[in-house]
């Protein structure tokens, strides 16, 4: 059985998560071995996931931690009446 590109696209996310049934995964894998376009789409999607997971995308503001812990200390002291 052979599947077309547009059907492979429907399985890209499951393929990346390794959550496809074995027979579906085998069909997708076979298609990817000879389809340059789907293979590149898979790679670009995978690499974009790596980009989105990178801590540098949402930068941590300078002083965030100090301000947070200062506020927590205020709260602790308020709670204990100190």
């Amino acid at each position, binding site marked *: 059985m052979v599947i077309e590109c*547009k059907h492979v*696209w*429907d399985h*890209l*996310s*499951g393929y*990346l*998560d*390794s*959550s496809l049934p074995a027979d579906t995964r085998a069909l997708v894998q076979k298609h*990817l*071995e*000879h*389809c*340059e*376009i789907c*293979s*590149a*789409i898979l*790679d*670009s*999607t*995978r*690499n*974009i*996931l*790596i*980009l*989105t*997971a*990178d*801590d*540098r*995308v*949402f*930068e*941590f*503001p300078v002083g*965030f*931690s100090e*301000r*947070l*812990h200062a*506020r*927590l200390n205020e*709260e*602790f002291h308020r*709670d*204990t009446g100190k």
Partner: protein
Amino acid sequence: MPLPGEPLRPIDHSAVGSGAILTRMDVALTTRNEAEMIASILGGDPERYHELIRPYERHVYRMALSFVKNEADAEDVAQEAFLKAFHHLASFRGQAKFSTWLISIALNEARSRLRLQSAVRMESLDEGPGEDGQISPALLRDWREIPSQALERKEVRAMVRAAIENLSPIYREVVILRDMEELSIEETAAMLTISTASVKVRLHRARIMLQKVLAPQLKSSAPQRRWFPWS
């Protein structure tokens, strides 16, 4: 099919989203006894809360920022989430990981803030395709951008951030929880109170939408790549 001279053809699927690998939070936990810290805090030593939450500050802030899209509001949301978690710590029974419980509080805090910002009107303009519609990826022949190098460029970081922020909320949530916070499909479903099947559908669509938006933009930032013409 590998192409000559292509610098990045990752084949290790554990690089993204595999439940078999330790998440960043799990790694942080391996040398910590959080149950003992929580017991100590509840027993009258609130100072240990500083130590308990330190590994999660960045995660909570990032989740807040991806929702409210404004650094000052995100910091406020994150602080409120940490305060709320402190005040409700006694209700944490250890049925989930502390990190998962904390993220769920941050998620609710961020959603509440969005509602306060008249989010209903904004979302109706930015709903994106429904869950039943078709969505296709951007077509290309290869990918020459190395993610770690691409992110050294400020404009690429801004592109990725904008692409995530511009997803409609139902898609943004699954991307944040699954692909950024690296929760499992099951944990993501439980946190959003939706089925695992819905998580998979939304995740697939969100990932394709990100690929569709970002791939052409990254193309224009590195014109030496070969691209397949738009259909």
